[in-house]
């Protein structure tokens, strides 16, 4: 299994880069992941990531995209409440990037 090094510890991830053990997550892990994608996480990114984590904690599921988009509209202004902006922020998309950085389980199912 691949790993991410963090604080001298080897954090296990799966072949697509998702945490194998969700408890391993920390802000820094998210940042390391982003760095490997050559991304710098701004406040806007963190708004989304934090929303994802809160939502997951509350409901034990990742929000549907429409909910995510609405949330973004709330924090970033309604003109940014669309998938386009979401992909500007996370070019690999919410599932592949935002959820991964947020330390949520790997999305499955519908492909």
């Amino acid at each position, binding site marked *: 299994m691949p790993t991410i090094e963090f604080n001298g510890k080897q954090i296990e991830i799966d*072949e*697509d880069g*998702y945490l194998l053990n969700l408890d391993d997550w920390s802000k820094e892990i998210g940042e390391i992941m982003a760095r490997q994608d050559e991304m710098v996480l701004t406040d806007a990114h963190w708004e989304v990531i934090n929303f994802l984590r809160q939502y997951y904690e509350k409901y034990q*599921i990742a929000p*549907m*995209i*429409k909910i995510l*988009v609405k949330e973004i509209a709330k924090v970033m202004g309604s003109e940014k409440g669309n*998938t*386009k902006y*979401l*992909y500007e922020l996370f*070019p*690999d*998309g*919410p*599932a*592949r990037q935002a959820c991964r950085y947020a330390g949520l389980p*790997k*999305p*499955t*199912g*519908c*492909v």
Partner: protein
Amino acid sequence: MSTESDTPLLDELEKGPFPSFVSEIKKAAAKNKMALDELKQLEKSYRDKRGYWKHGGIVGIRGYGSGIIGRHSSLPQEFPGVADFHTVRVNSVSGFFYTSDSLRQICDIWDRHGSGLLNMHGSTGDIILLGTSTEKLEPVFAEFSSRGWDLGGSGSSLRTPSCCIGPARCEWANIDTLDIIYNLTQEFQDEMHRPAFPYKFKIKAAGCAVDCIGAIARADCSIIGTWRGHIVVDQSAVAEYAKQGMDIQAEIVNLCPTGCMVYDGRELYINDEDCSRCMHCISRMTKALRPAGEKGATILIGSKAPFVIGATLSWVLVPFMKLEPPYDEFKALLKKIWEYWDEHGKNRERLGELVIRRGMREFLEFVGVKPSPQQVKEPRRDPFFYWKDEDFRRQ
């Protein structure tokens, strides 16, 4: 013995007249390591009677949330060539038309970056490029997109729309299936590439009720060409069919579901008012019978595979709609449908399931379609039904 095959079970499937997929894999394997490990892992599956693929896989290309199916072997040590073995869904051409050059172009790219194996086509209608690794995804996409090819749908997005051959080579097409599908695909690129629906959404268009694309069985929105008018009968062609041995009474008249035909041994009469345009007679007597009148389509919704509530067939939403470029009326309807689904759909709930769950009325009112008996096989049977205040006012 060195002559013993590594794949004795699969070898069995090279025998017999039908072209062998095993031979295809072997051809690819001869020059491609990924294909070789695919072959070997498959042999193991045949031995053990089980697949060796891991569940899921989330990979993709930048800016897109769909178009790639992630796939990893569960035996990467044993079969490193397929440790990553993602598929790339390339949006096919309306009607599945190709030129030899375009096919070679596809092959060239795929030999460079993938397994050299592909499906023409997947069930939804994509070109399925079968197996490449994560780091090859961006290159593959760059090669394709720069040459005018784009990815198809996957995930909770609009899936690659597809259609029957329609007016390109069929005398019965009531609508330009190819153009409609091309136009819609172009219009809804964002919906296809950046999943934002509650679940997948499929569109298929057939030129007539023969439905050579299976639209009614496997599309959240099924477009089926039809006409308002009659059937023109060429009596001399009828006579010709009879002369050539067709038993018109048995083969045509008796099988007409509405009983609206009469054959007196010489001429064939159709009571057009009672014809349901099922296409049977027309398909059997193509030289003699021809639909005439206003052409358009029936719009149906809701078909899908059995999860969760059991398989559904699409049902009539709009009995008749003219479909001419730029298809604005249809697009407006589609957007309303999505809006409704977006508002009420649960995660992984297909449109049909949603409408079944909440009832047709709310949906019809939302998308602005009137109730009509064409939408049902039969009215309700039980005397339990809702009334709204406006219904009282209407009376």
